[in-house]
């Protein structure tokens, strides 16, 4: 006897920031199915105009971030079972806190502009003709730097942070997390510039330790701890400067 497969109701938030609407689709339920697969099914079989973004499909590129039932997630690694309630319905929308290009596709430029603005780029202390720095993997600095470095810049933490929603200038968790990693990188120069950038008006001091960034980071990074550490570092260096100039 032929059994109709169960279906999942998928509501997709479509359009742009200016005008958006929600559309509902029914997708057959499968054993192994991610949220990205649901969206793909809709585009391939139901409505060919649905727009979304992905690349690696295995949690490495960070291009498939979307809001799933209101929560930011990497959709290629989010199994449907994990987010499907008994109502068999899922809501999918574009990643929060970023301008929408179309449907589920957001413009990630602001996110990366901030990454650069915070000084999230290595400043070499050596060139390619010099020997590679010997580094003690167990040194405290390297451990800190390492813990923060494996970010896939998916923007999930950025979408989860209410301070970003409230204050569009705030650098946000990912950029600050990168800054923290660099501040601990023995190979990088000009750390003062990074500390200056993170202590400016858009910097780490805007963070209210809500910790949703750490809650939602799919890679289990801890931007919240990185930011707290940055605050500590800035505090210490300001006090030191103060004492230094008093002398």
């Amino acid at each position: 006897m032929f059994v109709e497969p169960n279906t999942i109701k998928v509501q997709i938030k479509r359009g742009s920031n200016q005008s958006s609407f929600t559309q509902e689709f029914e997708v057959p339920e499968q054993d192994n199915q991610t949220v990205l697969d649901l969206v793909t099914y809709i585009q391939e079989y139901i409505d060919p105009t649905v727009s979304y973004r992905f690349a690696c499909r295995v949690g490495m590129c960070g291009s498939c971030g979307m809001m799933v039932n209101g929560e930011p997630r990497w959709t290629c690694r989010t199994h449907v079972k994990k987010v499907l309630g008994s109502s068999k319905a899922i809501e999918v929308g574009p990643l929060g806190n970023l301008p929408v290009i179309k449907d589920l596709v957001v413009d990630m430029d602001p996110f990366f502009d901030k990454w650069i603005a915070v000084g999230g780029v290595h400043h070499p202390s050596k060139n390619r003709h010099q020997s590679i720095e010997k580094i003690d993997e167990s040194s405290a600095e390297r451990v800190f730097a390492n813990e923060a470095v494996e970010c896939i810049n998916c923007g999930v933490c950025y979408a989860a942070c209410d301070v970003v929603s409230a204050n569009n200038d705030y650098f946000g968790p990912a950029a600050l997390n990168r800054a923290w990693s660099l501040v601990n990188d023995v190979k990088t120069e000009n750390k003062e510039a990074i500390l200056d950038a993170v202590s400016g008006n858009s910097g780490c001091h805007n963070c209210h330790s809500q910790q949703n960034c750490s809650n939602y980071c799919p890679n289990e990074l801890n931007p919240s701890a990185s930011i707290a550490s940055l605050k500590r570092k800035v505090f210490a260096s300001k006090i030191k400067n103060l004492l230094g100039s008093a002398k």
Partner: protein
Amino acid sequence: MANSSFGNIDRQDTDILIIGSGGAGLFAALHAQKAAPTQKVTIAVKGLIGKCGCTRMVQGGYNVALGGGDTVERHFMDTIIGGKWLPNQDMAWRLCNLAVERITELENEVGCFFDRNEDGTLHQKAFAGQTADRTVHKGDLTGIEIINRLMEQVLSRPIEKLQEHRAVSLIPAAGGEGISGVLFIDMRTGRFRFVRAKTTLMAMGGGPTMYKYQTPSGDKTMDGQAMALRAGLPLRDMEMVQFHPTGLLAGNNTRMTGTVLEEGLRGAGGYLLNSQDHRFMFDYDTKGERATRDLVSRAIYSEMKKNNSSPNGGVFISMSHLGPDVVRSKFPGMVKRCADSGFDLAGGKVEVVPTAHYLMGGVVVDVDTRTEVPGLFVAGEDAGGAHGSNRLGGNGVANSTVYGGVAGDVMGQEATRMNELRTPDEGILEQEIMRACAPFNKPVAPLAEIREKMRQIMWDDVGVVKTGSGLIRSIKSLAALEEELNSIGVDDKELAFNLTWHDWLNLKNLMQMSNVIAQAALARENSRGAHHREDYPDTGDLESSYFTLVRQSGNELSVSRKPVQFTIVKPGETILPEHEPESLVG
């Protein structure tokens, strides 16, 4: 239709145009900017800068000889022997030689974090097929580290970004001398954009994604090689498609099928089991699961052919005998990835299948990444020659970063010397726009079925094991399928971020390149490295090794064989000093 009428397209000029933002593209941008600070550098890419392509997906690491017994000569010999004497030896030499400078550049200038030994020096391990501990890595997420650091460097420089711009066609100069620029679709708006440049680099990363199971990033559909083919450039070694033995198998309805379960699982003692729970690898090779990629892939394929396959039609990998906790602590990333997809790698069995991973073949270039067309350069996986019939694990990212940098240097110099941009052949430009608009105004139907058919044909007849009759059959069925594709339309009401339009264009390129791969495979009447012909199982005479060359003129493909030039070392000889041990790996 957005602006498919020819007069209405966007046009812009730059000096150095780079297509692709993998290891090759990003390195080229950095080097070009440094070599030619007065020149405008533009990087155009199908996805977001640094967030697409396969370099980011590199797990194992980066091959480079850094002493401790290992030498550039040894790395070179491993590459030649691994490639079964087919590599272009000058390219392979440059790859091994420059990798040393490139890894230092990555560490010192780009700022990568690579894992260290106790004494603080770079940690290196050995992939299968290497005679020294040579692979530099960052855990098992080396690519993310490399690309993130490169991406930061590029984003922080005055380099123009054209993101979500799909390259469609190479546009020659009027009169035919060299390339004038590249036609793109701005995917965000659906509008055409023609970018003129003095020098252009294709670093679009090949990517054999026409197979039922495949590992590369979803944006890669062999666009670059298809563009080169249509522009009349020769492609070499196109039959050389590398399969990774253990791709995740989760059914046809999910994009996770085909993605790589890492090599280290087998290395650490994982079992491969067929549907009868029989550990079959020792039936094929004395090394069991630890045999090389091509052997394991073929063994799994045979089990599948014998109907010994798992529910979804593959085999199982089983790790649990090592103790679930051990597996969890040793392979946390893989265990979590499988768990996210609904599988228990630590305690249960996970279905796997060989999966198309890398294309050794590509556009013919010289050691400076020049093609035969003035102004056009190719680097990375789009270029052929460095690997011959097989790519060693760890040589892929070394290749893209080494030659990306070379391309940037050379293009910088060349662009600085040139005073003028070339004038495009407007006729060809118009014709190429029409080609990209081909699916409009035709009856719309889902493309997925056609795509699945193509993937099945390639898997069955042009896959892990090939035969002459299968190849001929595949060429016929591909031709029929392409006809079918040509009759299917795409709704053109809204072209902004119209993925379905791009799916159509992707499919079109993949079908053309499938044909090329099948034709090249038919022309190689022996079995080497990744290429295995059941009807010609022998390696063939090494001295008279040849490589295949495919080019297109008009609508005709011509396939030829060219003798390999042994410019550095002849088969049977070595450039290692006399009493060097065969292998340094204990």
